């Protein structure tokens, strides 16, 4: 059976649907220009679990769980669920960690970079430029033999581990929902102020997450792959999906009165252009070396890729360190140790890029 989502129009429609849904989530309560942000939302989940104590970014974002479960459902229906693991797992964890450090210096993943631009935030241009440069550097490694090695088929228990984790966390969210005005409900922490206190109704967030997870698994939507494939092969397939997301979110923002062009006072953003560029540059390099943007890693995890799941867990750990150690930016600018973290992150990614070579067998 032909996969209509994998056609040229398929990827364009998927990108457009994601753009409309993300912008609509902002109208329904999600933070500004943050309808969907894989980095921010994993960071909020880390916060809700108490892995970091940044009081303004703590919420158990259901969209993330929806991404994994929606992709899982699609992979089951279309017989693509394939438990696999073993392609340099620790390296992937570290790449996830570095990607999150970079993303939180910029304040957003590639998805949010597009949504920020679609909402009129000019600072996002520097982030997107950084993303392209970071991915471009990653392609140089690919051209010179960079390779994380092969994954191998894994058993069902390994393939379903992340699903159990995700469903468990979702159940915790149902058991201990936010209470108005309270900063926690038993074991889960919740923001009373700031972006963590802004969210669309749980059922809608989860439904949108499931829908995006489903169509993104079918279409292989990937914001990093879009730029990588263009730089490496001049292939525009995935890029069309990304552009469709940008245009659709822009139009939806216009219709909903959410387009506010400018650089100053943009929601959950700072104006330090170079560090917006460098932060997303680091994230872009890490995504390229790991073979997928953070959304794509979640969709891959849903279809049984244990290495991608570990990348996402690395992101959660990276978020905790970022906020505990003052690496993450705030609307005032980079954190006290954000610059050092970006530099170290680049060194780590370069070491991985140079160090991981063909290792057959």
């Amino acid at each position, binding site marked *: 059976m032909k*996969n209509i989502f*994998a056609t040229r129009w398929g990827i364009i429609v998927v990108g457009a649907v994601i753009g409309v849904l993300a912008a609509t989530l902002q109208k329904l309560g999600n933070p500004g220009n943050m309808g969907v942000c894989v980095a921010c939302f994993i960071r909020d989940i880390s916060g809700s679990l108490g892995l970091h104590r940044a009081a303004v970014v703590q919420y158990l974002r259901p969209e993330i769980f929806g991404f994994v479960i929606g992709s899982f459902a699609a992979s089951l229906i*279309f017989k*693509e669920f*394939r438990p*696999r693991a*073993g*392609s340099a797992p620790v390296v992937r964890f570290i790449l996830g960690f570095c990607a999150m450090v970079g993303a939180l210096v910029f304040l957003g993943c590639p998805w949010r970079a597009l949504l920020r631009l679609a909402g009129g935030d000019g600072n996002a241009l520097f982030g997107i430029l950084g993303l392209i440069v970071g991915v471009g550097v990653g392609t140089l490694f*690919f051209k010179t033999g960079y*390779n*994380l*090695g*092969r*994954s*191998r*088929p894994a058993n069902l228990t390994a393939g379903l581990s992340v699903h159990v984790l995700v469903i468990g966390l979702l159940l915790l969210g149902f058991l201990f929902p936010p209470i108005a005005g309270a900063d926690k409900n038993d074991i889960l922490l919740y923001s009373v102020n700031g972006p963590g206190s802004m969210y669309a109704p749980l059922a809608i967030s989860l439904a949108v997450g499931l829908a995006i997870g489903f169509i993104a698994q079918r279409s*292989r939507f*990937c914001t990093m*792959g879009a730029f*990588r*494939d263009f730089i*490496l*092969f001049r*292939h525009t*397939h995935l890029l069309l999906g990304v552009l469709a997301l940008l245009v659709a979110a822009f139009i939806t923002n216009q219709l909903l009165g959410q387009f506010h062009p400018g650089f100053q006072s943009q929601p959950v953003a700072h104006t330090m252009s170079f560090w917006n560029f460098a932060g997303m540059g680091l994230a872009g390099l890490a995504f390229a070396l790991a*073979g*997928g943007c953070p959304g794509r890693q979640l969709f891959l995890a849903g279809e049984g890729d244990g*290495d991608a799941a570990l990348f996402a867990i690395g992101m959660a750990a990276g978020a905790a360190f970022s906020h505990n150690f003052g690496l993450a930016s705030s609307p005032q600018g980079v954190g006290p140790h954000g610059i050092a973290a970006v530099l170290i992150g680049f060194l780590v990614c370069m070491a991985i890029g140079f160090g991981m070579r063909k290792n057959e067998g």
Partner: protein
Amino acid sequence: MEKTIDARGLSCPQPVLMTLEEIKTLGTGTLVIVVDTETAKENVSRAAASQGWGIKQVTSESDGYRITITK
């Protein structure tokens, strides 16, 4: 016998990279690429077509797909 590339277990963009490298080396002929995911199958087929190679045959195997391309 035609050249076979085993791209099983490799993540994006390795299967496409290997296919395009081999296409460049061969120029014309027949090439077989073995992959283990539907995504890799689609990507390799799309990349081959973009270079003017035809998809001669795609067979499903227990652990993936065997794609035969020719030019």
